[in-house]
């Protein structure tokens, strides 16, 4: 299976992925026309600043069916709606163990970076509420169905986002 992978060490925080995502999920698929659409197109990716390691990373959740992050979470901080497969994260139950990140193709690289940097002050709270915001809005990363490459990957000028076979990692 192919998925979007995040390479946090390459992210410069430009937010190009956010704009590309919003345009790809607009009716017109055109930057200039998308601005006039109502309701405004919603992006599925969010560049967030992580105070611990002092980096910006794009965060996006695919809300996978049979989400591995949910099944490995020891405190049930992550849960999944059985019908919509939408995942929610309860920060109050989260103990920053990072177990979820080791099984998430999108977060594993961040986890590895954090390991290298030895920055344990930060945690899975690193999703910065993105997962829950998506859950509330009823949207999720759909890997840009119908496109050759997800728009965020195409837009990233530093290749901090790549689209690749998960098993290759």
């Amino acid at each position: 299976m192919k998925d979007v992978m995040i390479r946090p060490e390459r992210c410069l925080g430009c937010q190009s992925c956010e704009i590309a995502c919003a345009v790809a999920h607009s009716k017109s698929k055109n930057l200039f026309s998308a601005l006039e659409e109502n309701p405004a197109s919603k992006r599925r990716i969010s560049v967030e600043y992580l105070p611990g390691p002092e980096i910006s990373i794009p965060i996006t959740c695919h809300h996978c069916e049979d989400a591995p992050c949910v099944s490995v979470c020891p405190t049930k901080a992550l849960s999944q709606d059985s019908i919509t497969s939408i995942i929610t994260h309860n920060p109050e139950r989260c103990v920053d163990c990072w177990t979820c990140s080791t099984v998430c193709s999108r977060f594993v690289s961040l986890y590895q970076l954090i390991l290298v940097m030895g920055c344990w002050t930060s945690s899975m709270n690193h999703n910065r509420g993105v997962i829950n915001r998506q859950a509330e809005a009823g949207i999720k990363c759909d890997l840009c169905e119908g496109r050759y490459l997800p728009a965020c990957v195409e837009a990233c000028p530093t290749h901090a986002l790549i689209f690749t076979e998960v098993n290759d990692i």
Partner: protein
Amino acid sequence: MKQEIHEKSIDTASQAMLWKAREEGMETVWDRYEKQLPQCGFGQLGVCCRNCNMGPCRIDPFGEGADKGVCGATADIIVARNLLRMIAAGAAAHSDHARDAVLTFKKMSEGKAGSYKIKDETKLLSIALEYGIPAEGKRCEEVAAELAHALLLEFGKQDGNLLCAKRAPGPRLKLWTELGIEPRGIDREIVECMHRTHMGVDNNATHILLQGLRTGLSDGWGGSMIATDVQDILFGTPQPRRSTVNLGVLSREKINVIVHGHEPILSEMIVEAAEDPELLKLAQEKGAIGINVAGICCTGNETLMRHGTPIVGTFLQQELAVITGAVEAMVVDVQCIMPSLGELTGCYHTKFISTSPKADFPNTLRMEFHEDRAYEIAKEIVRAAIENFPNRIPEKVNIPEEKRECMVGFSVEAILSALGGSPDPLIEAIKSGAVWGIGAVVGCNNIKVMHNYGHVTLVKELIKNNVLVVTTGCNAIACAEAGLLLPEAAELAGDGLKTVCKALGIPPVLHMGSCVDISRILLISSALANRLGVDISDLPAAAAAPEWMSEKAVSIGAYVVSSGVFTVLGTVPPVLGSQAVTALLTKDLNSVVGASFAVEPDPFKAADLMLEHIDEKRKALGLESRR
């Protein structure tokens, strides 16, 4: 998005060189553009600000993230400030070019630039008169010295308004005064733009844009107009003449010297040096049968207009010219010169010679130009080209066959003389409907548009509908390559325009010069408006820049619209991130200066917009109209 070669340019000579580039593994502007895609959305919308070090800041155009920069600037403020800086840069480029022309003129009048002389005394005297300089009993050089002094004052003027701007029709000038946008000192307007856009100064989008209009006016009716005037005095006012264009003008047997950039001050000398018997002899010794000086961009247009020197191509053909493998020297001054030429010329025998004290590029042979030794330096440059001829690599030479004849040199003076000395015949033709209106089509190439497609398609649509087209810059070269600058092209025009062109022996598309020579278009518009007793905004006229890319084009847009001419842009300016600024530019300006912008990438639809506008204006003047 991978473009095929036939999708990159409408010109077959350019396509041939793109194939050659591919075979030889050469990188061109098209390859670099592909690597930039997709381009940054914030940049395209104009909503990023780097004006202070609390930033960089950007506004989320979809309303989820930040709606203000750190200082509190909204998208409206950021977009307006960025646009003002673009205008300032464009006006600076044109006006600094003008300053150098005036400084050369001054040195000439003082006898310190012996290579130059006064070529058009009539123009000198008429402009001196405008500036209130009495000429009786004085030598030409004395008048020139006084005029140079007066012109230089226009740049640093601290009080009062620009004298050149008084050439605008009365109602227009009055409107500018009422709006508070009558231009003051040229440098002052540019400096004020930089001040206003500094952190925490001007933070009202409308207020910022009014300064943009004023700065544009200081370019069009100031810097650019002064450049045109002085260059005409020094090098001669253009008169109709014939020449050839496109990559095929490069010669297999001659030394090819390309002059590329924007100023005629050096290239005039190079054209002269290429006829120097001593250098011609040297060329023969090196195995060449002569010296072929040819131009690219507006340096090319300047020598084309005054000497009929052939033109190699437009902005997007500068790399393709080198790729022919037949260019001994690419001599550049300022503006629109791609830094990529450094690496590219290194792959051929071409010497990349940079000459302006202001502009150097990677891997150049530096031969800095100074007016006091103008002719000597020009000779040294030509000599360097000649000595490079034996280094030409025959296997790498492939010059496309394509070249077209063209008729150029339509200064205001030349147009009036073609009309028999007064604008009346043209006005009569407009009134009768034979000439439906005037279309000013100008501007650059932009890699975002298929090379020359926007230019040529739009111009053909206009002339088909009996709109007489006036052109400058790369649009003029594009039209020339498409054969539109020939009296024979009248066959492509509507019946009315065809008859007029045939009667006068002129092409349906009139080449008026380089991009600073858009000042000539302002003057012919004024002449028509004055004769009709109306403002420029009442004329059945419209403008377009189908493939614009440079900041100079933004400044030009600002002054053309402020002068009252509806203008259609073929590429989207970085302003759509602000609804307020977009509305102001495309609608609200109409009620302020009687003209506005439109953005339309499709050249057929752009032509429709212009025709619609011309129709409205015809109707308002009580002339026959279609709708």
